[in-house]
């Protein structure tokens, strides 16, 4: 148990509190306790007894954002380097300089500072974070967006329900649920949505489709009776594609329909526009939008690299929370802001920080997530946080990635222990994690 959890226990949190855990906390270094006013924050939380959230917006910071230059600065300590800290909406909690707007919004979200994982490679760690499972050669697990699309209603949505804006190398995938759950990839919302505009005038396009029907009839001869249903899905996919091409909901991608002041609030960057589009997409019923901000892999020149990304992240994240609240979407949307791992407390000779899965931050907002709560903490000396056994929630150890998945799924009202059947007939539960109840409004 780390000090922050201790405090949670002290004000009646769910953590089981006994002499042994206190002892462990002492060993873990009670001396570096950062005072956190989360008891106060708890009072500020509103009682949200409505429906569970229906959508997730994943602000994906590809490359590994540094916890020290974002949510967990340890200013003044050796590991901080030259990074300065600023105050946040929560007394006693500081963020890194550059995160001013987000800091102001901390009263609206939960911050977990003691994330741990066992993956230190970009691709494997990204997979781990997006699916909640470590890479397994026998099975490709679905990412969280795919699970949402699979388990929640699709009614009324004509556009893809799983979208990745400015995708990096590894956008969310359907995995064993099937490719139909893969994220639809689209670019900076200032450019047109790819592939949804016919290349010829409508009349000619319709003639072409008729001709395709004609050719299909000849292909069907002598073949399976249920060729369409069992195999090709030809007319189904064409029908849905054409419907999407003419759907009014496509306008949700078009951020130019927003006022100039709204757009400005998100920042003039592809990421900012992506976040604004994400809010609009969630509004029309899209289940999961990944908005990608690449380039956090600062092995060289850490501070400048991180700083440039923070400049795009800060206004966009803060404006997203504000707009979701203004439009009454906050309770039905969960915003996750995370990368695949954090960065080393030590600074290497190139002025960079390397990969660090032993204590990094993740921010969670909306839905049933608590508003103004900081969970866990890292050592100011840069010690590793231990990974719990088998995703257990263990005092003094970090929060395993699978547990964040379980908590999000739980907040979405999805029974993650239910077993889905993989294509080879293997039953597999949606998540093997445990709910971290302290992160949620009870």
């Amino acid at each position, binding site marked *: 148990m780390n000090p922050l959890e201790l405090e949670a226990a002290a004000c009646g949190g769910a953590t089981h509190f006994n002499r042994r855990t206190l002892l462990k906390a002492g060993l873990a270094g009670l001396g570096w306790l950062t005072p956190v006013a989360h008891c106060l924050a708890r009072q500020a939380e509103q009682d949200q007894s409505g429906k569970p959230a229906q959508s997730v917006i994943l602000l994906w910071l590809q490359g590994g954002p540094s916890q020290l230059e974002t949510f967990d600065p340890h200013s003044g300590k050796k590991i901080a380097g030259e990074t300065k800290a600023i105050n946040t909406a929560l007394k006693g909690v500081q963020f890194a300089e550059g995160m001013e707007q987000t800091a102001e919004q901390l009263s609206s979200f939960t911050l977990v500072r003691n994330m741990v994982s066992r993956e230190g490679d970009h691709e494997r760690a990204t997979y781990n974070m997006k699916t909640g499972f470590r890479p397994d050669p026998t099975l490709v697990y679905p990412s969280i967006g795919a699970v949402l699309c699979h388990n929640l209603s699709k009614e009324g949505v004509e556009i893809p329900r799983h979208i990745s804006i400015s995708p990096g190398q590894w956008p969310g995938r359907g995995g064993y649920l099937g490719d139909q759950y893969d994220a639809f990839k689209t670019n900076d919302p200032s450019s047109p949505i790819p592939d949804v505009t016919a290349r010829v005038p409508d009349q000619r396009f319709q003639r072409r489709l008729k001709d395709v029907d004609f050719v299909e009839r000849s292909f069907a001869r002598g073949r*399976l009776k249920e060729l369409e249903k069992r195999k090709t899905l030809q007319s189904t996919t064409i029908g849905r594609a054409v419907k999407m091409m003419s759907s009014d909901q496509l306008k949700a991608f078009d951020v130019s329909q927003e006022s100039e002041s709204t757009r400005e609030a998100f920042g003039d960057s592809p990421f900012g526009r992506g976040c604004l589009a994400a809010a609009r997409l969630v509004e029309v019923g899209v289940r999961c939008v990944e908005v990608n901000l690449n380039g956090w892999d600062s092995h060289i020149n850490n501070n400048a690299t991180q700083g440039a990304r923070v400049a795009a992240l800060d206004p966009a994240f803060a404006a997203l929370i504000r707009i979701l609240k203004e439009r009454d979407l906050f309770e039905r949307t969960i915003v996750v802001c995370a990368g695949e791992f954090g960065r080393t407390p030590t600074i290497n000779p190139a002025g960079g920080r390397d990969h660090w899965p032993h204590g990094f931050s993740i921010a969670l907002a909306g839905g049933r997530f608590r508003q103004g709560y900081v969970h866990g903490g890292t050592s100011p000396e840069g010690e590793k946080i231990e990974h719990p056994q088998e995703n257990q929630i263990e005092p003094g150890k970090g929060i395993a990635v699978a547990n964040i998945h379980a908590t999000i799924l739980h907040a979405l009202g999805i029974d993650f222990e239910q077993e889905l059947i993989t294509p080879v007939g293997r039953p597999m539960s949606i998540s093997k994690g445990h709910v971290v109840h302290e992160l949620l409004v009870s």
Partner: protein
Amino acid sequence: MWAKRALFFGVSILGLSFMVATLLSGSPAPREAPPREATPLSPGEAGIHEIASMVDQQFAAKWAKLEMQAAAPADDLTIMRRLALGLTGSVPSLEEIRAFEAANAHDPTQWRLSRLFEDRRFSDYLAERLARAYVGTEDGPFIMFRRHRFVTWLSDRLQENQPYDVIVRSLIADAGLWTDTPAVNFLSVTIDQDAEQEEDKRPDEIRLAGRTTRAFLGMRLDCVQCHDDQFGDHWKQTHFHELAAFYGHAQSSLMGISDTLEQDYKYQYLRAETEEVVAPSVPFEAELLPEETEGVTQRQRLAAWVTHKENKPFARAMVNRMWAIMFGQPLVQPIDDLPLEGPFPPGLETLAADFAEHDFNLQRLIRTIAATRVYQLDSRADFEPTIKHEDQWAVFPLTRLRPEQVAGAMMQSSTLRTANARSHVVFRIIKFFQKNDFIQRYGDTGEDEFEDRGGTIPQRLLMLNGNLIKERTKNTSMANAASRISALAPDDRTAVEMAYLTVLTRRPEEEESAYFAKKLAGLHGDQRAQGMEDIAWTLLNSSEFSWNH
């Protein structure tokens, strides 16, 4: 200077037009001339028809037992298309179709294979497919892993038809630098170059043991990595780690991959108190494992055992994989989960035994599979075929083309000549850029090669409205088949036939020919070119194009 260039350009265009005109000039009905004498067989081919017919008898017996009808043989062009998709990743060009029909070979399938084996596209494509099983599609550690080198090396081996066991022994046991000895990339891809401890920056025994058993033995021994087999009691956790221990001496340094006796593989078993040194041992056929000898590395011992002629899973796994590459789905599914003791489906044991007996000759294996009646069956039938018929291979199974096959076929079908490594360099650059972007949007399948995937809305949108299809069908004078056919085909019926041949590798039925010829009737110039563009677009958007059948 410009005049010289213009002259060169003019001459090239003239030459090209002449060649194209030759390709387009009418369509001699195939099989007019009497079949030529059968060409003498190379040593690798002797007896393949006997093996093929043994395989066919086993299938026939199974069908008889199930009281199941089988489809009639498919026509030559359909088989030609299957071979091209499976072994080069694209459809045949019009040029190849013409050459094929002009040759009027005694055994068209074997004739075609002889041409394909000489073609770099064959070895490049097969190498890429196999590389997915050997090193995956991950980027890997960027300093110590050279995927392109690896695939090129593999392609060279396939081009010279090196015996498969020799290739695999290199993969498992070679030492050296990833750039000079590309086979070692099989090991170096598993290195965690960001490991915190310097001594952890070495090949990962666990991942290697998983790959070794899956890729070379068609077994999922890595399922017992963490605990004993819970479904049967066949495999124990120790089996997996004892196999992993063969990689325990492998190390990585500036000199590349080598072996050292100064380290051993250690593992802490489930419920064990401490980590222990694990001694290398094999999970079955232990008598095939060479004794420990000075100067022979543990990896060399493992390589000898894996590739031993009597280690049957080795041959079976490759037969199953090659079958999958050629048919679009493996004989035993999933591809890397073959039982050790059977039961086995028809054909597998016979093909595996022949493969091992003939020094693991891959080209012979391909020839034999292609020679079976099963491979040459039609995918349609005059009775009503069901999924059960497909499962029993009584009709040729319909499988969705893989993303690179769709891209490759689209690139190929938009030109009349054979698009290959010898093609003009500019053409190749266009080809690779577009192809990669397309595959990215279409969604690469990664390592899980043979699961039915796809059929998504984004894929459909990409086919309807994407850049590649626009570029490849639009009316330009540069490279597109549709425009050339429009300009050069002598009449509407011929134009339609050319479109069918280039895109679908077949001639249109009378009804189809009439339907589309009517659309072209009376059109000239740009309008006619537009009409051809529409036909090309339509055929490219058909299921017939995007499925193997």
